[in-house]
């Protein structure tokens, strides 16, 4: 069976982003970009399923600008077999619904039995695309997965929920989104990076898939979060307790 793994190119998680002074967005020019951490976990899981023999082909997909090819090469260096880039102009903000529609078109074309996505992208923090794709394709969903097991025509997903863990059984084809604890993604090695350069990477346009990617949500303004007032260092526990009791009045 085939697995489709959508991956997103985002600002590296270690970068502290700055809001542009004109309030139009955050400044991502000349900032280090990487694969969204949850998507690395998704690729790793797909590759592990292949190594276990449950999966025959892993296809990585990304939607966005030309540079997303680098992200797809990384996915192929982890072990994806081939990649597809749905290339969109840099001036269009791709929102989850549009991405879900592009992915739906690719699912219709490729017929994967499983789609594994990250639970959320660390830039827009939406946590929507997987669920939306499941809705559009009529597939069941296993979100926030910390364990995935394929048996016959079902996949059993253990999910991280508030208060603990929950296990659901889904009929294939299904959509799974990864949580942090699903696995530890492997490091890509130089030989694998070289090999990934030779793997197939197809580039298509949203129009080829018949999808309108016009944003539905308009960003009016992006601002800095309110700053916290400067704090003080206290010399000892007694002072701390006194401050909490008398100044902050929280205990």
């Amino acid at each position: 069976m085939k697995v489709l793994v959508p991956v997103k190119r985002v600002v590296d998680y270690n970068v502290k982003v700055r809001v542009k002074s004109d309030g139009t967005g955050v400044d991502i020019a000349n900032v280090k970009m990487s694969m969204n951490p949850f998507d690395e976990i998704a690729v790793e899981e797909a590759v592990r399923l292949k190594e276990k023999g449950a999966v025959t082909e892993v296809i990585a997909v990304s939607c966005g600008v030309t540079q997303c090819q680098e992200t797809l090469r990384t996915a192929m260096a982890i072990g994806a077999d081939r990649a597809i880039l749905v290339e969109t102009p840099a001036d269009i903000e791709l929102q989850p619904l549009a991405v879900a529609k592009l992915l739906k078109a690719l699912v219709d074309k490729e017929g994967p039995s499983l789609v594994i996505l990250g639970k959320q992208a660390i830039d827009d923090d939406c946590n929507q695309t997987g669920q939306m794709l499941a809705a559009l394709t009529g597939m069941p969903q296993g979100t926030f997965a910390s364990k995935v097991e394929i048996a016959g025509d079902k996949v059993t997903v253990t999910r991280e929920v508030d208060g603990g863990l929950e296990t659901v059984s889904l009929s294939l084809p299904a959509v799974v989104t990864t949580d942090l604890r699903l696995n530890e993604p492997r490091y890509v090695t130089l030989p694998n990076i070289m090999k990934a350069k030779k793997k197939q990477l197809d580039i298509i346009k949203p129009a080829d898939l018949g999808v309108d990617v016009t944003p539905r949500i308009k960003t009016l303004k992006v601002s800095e979060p309110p700053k916290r007032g400067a704090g003080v260092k206290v010399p000892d526990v007694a002072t701390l307790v006194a401050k909490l009791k008398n100044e902050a009045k929280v205990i």
Partner: protein
Amino acid sequence: MTALVIAEHDNASIKGATLNTVTAAAATGGEVHVLVAGHNAGAAAAAAAQIAGVTKVLHADSAALAEGLAENVAAQVIALASGYSHLLFPATAAGKNVAPRVAALLDVAQLSDVTKVISADTFERPIYAGNAIATVQSGDATKVLTVRTTGFDPAAASGGSATVETVAAAADSGKSSFVGREVTKSDRPELTAAKIIVSGGRALGSNDKFMEVLTPLADKLGAALGASRAAVDAGYAPNDWQVGQTGKIVAPQLYIAAGISGAIQHLAGMKDSKVIVAINKDAEAPIFSVADYGLEADLFVAVPELVAAL
């Protein structure tokens, strides 16, 4: 213009996050209805009818809705959606699971983790781990939102007198089934609702030390226990104690961070706390930049001293 809040409940009672979501729904300017979709959830529906500001409770009862499976709950919401301008879910694991599925079926965008309602179509939401706040406007006919509960005060759980109306339950999708649940047992206040949180990081060193050092402090303060990702990954604390961008978002009166360096992803989950106390040996730890009171000390000495002093 009427808003529908999709209640989070355990069939017997309404979860606290629902109350904050009702407040956000009221801010959109119309009537507020609440959907209780579950199995044998009459008690939860009755509780929802008591929430101040709610005018109608829709109660859907079916075995297929018992465990809140996204496929079935989404179908239930879709069956009722046409009468509503806003569909609001709490931004909890359950709400985040279902809301985007509903939005896509309606072919509308979804707004995640809304922290402020500016008008019926304009909202604020944090992006980039809370390092920027976006003001966004939705052009869709139906607005589907998840509500960050710490952004809104809870509505009063009593004083309301809504009518409860039974609605037809949606059919089982047949594509998913519930297998089981493992609940972390805890006698402490729920993390997201606690007034005081004592949170530990990697510096605790082990699960035993984590519990041994932080439990007495939490007991003394009647606080919930939280943890950084590092502490959770190392197995010192359960996953659902994780505070941060990818864990719980909290905003208690007092947040005590012990042995937590303060990575961007952790700060995203707690920087709206009223008072932040940091206890850390490393004077350069980023946590001190957001702490109201910083104590540069070994937590293994300072925390027991703190317990003794309280």
